[in-house]
């Protein structure tokens, strides 16, 4: 079980209270009419499936019922940070690649993250 920090409630809560809601920071095209089918399809249907640091949207479904973001490592399942909607993550894949932990993981797995 995860023990997730809700940035709105200001404390850690059981995973049972939360629901994952998919990839975070997806921006709706400013002008849908002028999108190509490919751009619109990308926005609507295609999601990242990275090995490593991933930003996700979660909702505190049973608690305050607010959406917020989680930066999670998809290999270790470790939650690196949580932050409110509208904020930017302080931990990103680019920043993580240089850290020792990520290097160890990719070395161990023998593949590139």
């Amino acid at each position, binding site marked *: 079980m995860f023990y997730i920090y809700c940035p709105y409630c200001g404390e850690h809560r059981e995973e049972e209270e939360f629901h994952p809601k998919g990839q975070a920071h997806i921006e709706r095209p400013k002008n849908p009419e002028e999108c190509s089918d490919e751009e619109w399809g990308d926005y609507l249907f295609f999601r990242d499936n990275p090995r490593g640091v991933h930003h996700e949207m979660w909702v505190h479904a049973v608690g*305050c019922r607010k959406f917020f973001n989680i930066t999670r490592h998809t290999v270790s399942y470790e939650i690196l940070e949580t932050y409110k909607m509208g904020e930017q993550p302080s931990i990103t894949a680019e920043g993580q690649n240089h850290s020792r932990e990520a290097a160890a993981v990719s070395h161990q797995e023998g593949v590139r993250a």
Partner: protein
Amino acid sequence: MSNAATFDTRTDTAIPVESPLAYSYRHSGAPRGSGYRLKLRERAMLGHLILRGGAIVLDEAVREVLGINLPGKPQALVQDASGERSIQWLSPDEWLVIVPGGEEFPLETQLRERLGDAHYAISDVSGGQTLLEISGEAARELLMKTVIYDVHPSNFPVGKGVTTVFAKATTIIRRPSEERWELVVRRSFADYCYRWLLDAGSEYGVNVEQ
């Protein structure tokens, strides 16, 4: 005053009213007797209001009308001196106000008058939920095996209230005083929660006050 349509859910007409637990008392009984370590009491027909809006706007109005400060801190629960009226933080823009039954409509009207055209919402949810009171020395033990939230006094002091999972049902758990815990449960879940409490409490001995 805003032009929202409002109406008093308590009519003057003599309609027999039953508490959400009336069915449960008939079908599951209400154990009494001495030598109990757990006491249950339903406080039915209270007035429950949900306030939504910005904290600053609501705080002023609530303080003026109800005389209680709007709790700005997460998980906070404040009461008036008598303990009859309370406001609980539910989310950064949502609060639960519980007042004695019959006071909710006048309160809603007064708040609407005071708030005018500000951006807010008030919903009367009195008919949708009920309040169960648990007291007795085994109250915390019972909660420990029922809820996923840590109810140790160091994490759950008096004046705190959280929305969490109570035996699979979404429930608001509050601690208005040292000995007393309150559960705000959905009306439709009241029977389930009541029977859970009877079953879980049977090892301590339960007394139900009606």
